[in-house]
């Protein structure tokens, strides 16, 4: 019993410290606010593609894709750039638009936080 109570108290201190120090992690609210008013007017009939400038082996790449889907429900989000509308999730201070253009993506809306809505020009 003593061990249990001491353990939980010890860990509580650890956790409190970790939460106050923490600046990383997948803050859902912060992530959702990046999408701004794109979240309004979404319908369940919509399907978006998704591209990102994260390296594919970066663990946050998968998490950010999942969070994008979580944020944009009821629309469906797929990992490909094939749908007509594609979400670009960019992190660089000056996003590489040429890389997007090389994939036939033309961004027509900038949400100001590295989130762009692009049109896939190869889809008619």
């Amino acid at each position, binding site marked *: *019993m*003593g*061990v*249990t*109570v*001491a*353990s*939980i*108290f*010890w*860990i*509580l201190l*650890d*956790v*409190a410290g*970790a*939460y106050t*120090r*923490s600046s*990383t*992690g*997948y803050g*859902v*609210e912060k992530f959702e606010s990046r999408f701004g008013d794109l979240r309004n007017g979404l319908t*369940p*009939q919509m*399907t978006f593609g998704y591209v990102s400038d994260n390296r594919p082996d970066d663990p946050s790449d998968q*998490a950010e894709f*999942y*969070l994008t*889907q*979580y944020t944009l*429900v*009821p629309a*469906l989000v*797929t990992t490909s750039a094939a749908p007509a509308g594609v979400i670009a999730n960019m992190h660089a201070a000056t996003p590489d638009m040429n890389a997007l253009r090389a994939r036939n993506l033309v961004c027509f809306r900038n949400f100001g936080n590295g989130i762009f809505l692009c049109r896939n020009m190869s889809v008619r």
Partner: protein
Amino acid sequence: MSLLYLALFCLAGIGLVRFLLPFELKPSLHAALAVSVGAGAGLGIASSLYFLCLTLAGPKLAVIFPVEGVFVAGAIALGWVAKPKGPDLRWADGPAAPWFLTALAGAAAVLGLVFFVMHSANKPHGEWDAWSIWNLHARFLYRSGDLWKNAFSPQISWSHPDYPVLIPGLISLAWSLARGETTLAPIVVAFVYTFASAGVLIAIVGVLRGRTQALVAGALLLGTVEFVQIGAMQYADVPLSFYILATVAMLCLQDRFPDDPRYTLLAGLSAGFAAWTKNEGLMFVVVVIVARAIALLRFGSMPRLLKQLGAMAAGLAFPLAITAYFKLRFAPPNDLTSTRPVDIIAHASDFGRWVTVLQSFGKEALFFGQMAVEGELVRGFLIPISLVLLLYWFLVRFRVEEQNRSAVATVAIAVGLMLAGDFAVYVLLPNDVNWQLTTSLDRIFLQLWPAGLLAFFLATDAPQLAVKRAAEKSKQARQSAKPQRRAAETR
């Protein structure tokens, strides 16, 4: 408003349990058990009815509201008119619990509560599995209108759309009735399951073994930071562990009061909701029936077993029918169960996989409770809990009374078979067994932790009684040694 509806569902479940196991409307152990079991039962029934409404009429509030309303009003009315009769569940006879034990259990409960609140305030959307599976599905059900089936779309196969719908359905239901999303709904659902599990454990151990054992068991559960953490992370493992515990707890009571089949009826209902919560719950339904059959054939009788199987089938019928309907009609193929037979044979004949899984099970058993806080691995207990339990057992030893034998056997066999089943799943099914073990084994143990604690504290002797018995034994040994010594001296 979401919270009000969730509270009403819990109240309806409590009413239903009061109808089945009537108790006086005053604070008591009986009431604590009924409230804890009833809260989970109410949430399970509400979720099942919501899914039924969705499938039959779509997301129409004009249908959902009256259906849920009839359930809530009917169950509360049944509970209200129930007259206390039948056995009154009280603390088992035994030595009074020392004050410091009560204080330590209280401290563990308060610290667990603080930890839960702190975690939920920091991460109101929960963690990875919450926003990539459970709350994601809830959002699809709530936001998609007539296209609610998008929650099970193969396009989001990474979010396991084949997983049962108890938790997402419940959250979506609360949002639908309140006409607005709030993160408080999943937080409250997680809170109810986490702390109701402690309520069930303390109450059932209190009824069967007494106050001291109950306080130690409850403190150990709430002191398992990983249990409270996974609960606050809004994962479905804690709700599943609740239903597993409630099932075996009701079966233990059935053994104490063998003529009243209502306990097994409630056990069946809980087992069904375990299947409606997570895929592992489906395995639990099979396992608990087998465990019960083995225990009763060994310590009971065939007629008793047949009678209980009938009551269990009656309890299982509704939630299992809903689960089967979902699995057959809506769920896409599961990534594990769609493994090809040829791969299963290849996995089974791979000796390395057996060793890997065995090693991981051994490590998890020893270091159970480890957890990650903001990406850093933290030891859950200052001393590994398996060693603490081993020392506890060494000091007090097992002492299973005649009347508890089939109960202990049921719980122990169920936990053992679940572990064996999970072991087989790891060996046979996943392609990347290391990844599967790393990401899920701790939660597999966690699902069985409350039931495991129940088995342990049903089997161990109360500390004061063990001390008393040891003192009597040594006194007897001294007394029998005296004449021998005198005889030797005379000689």
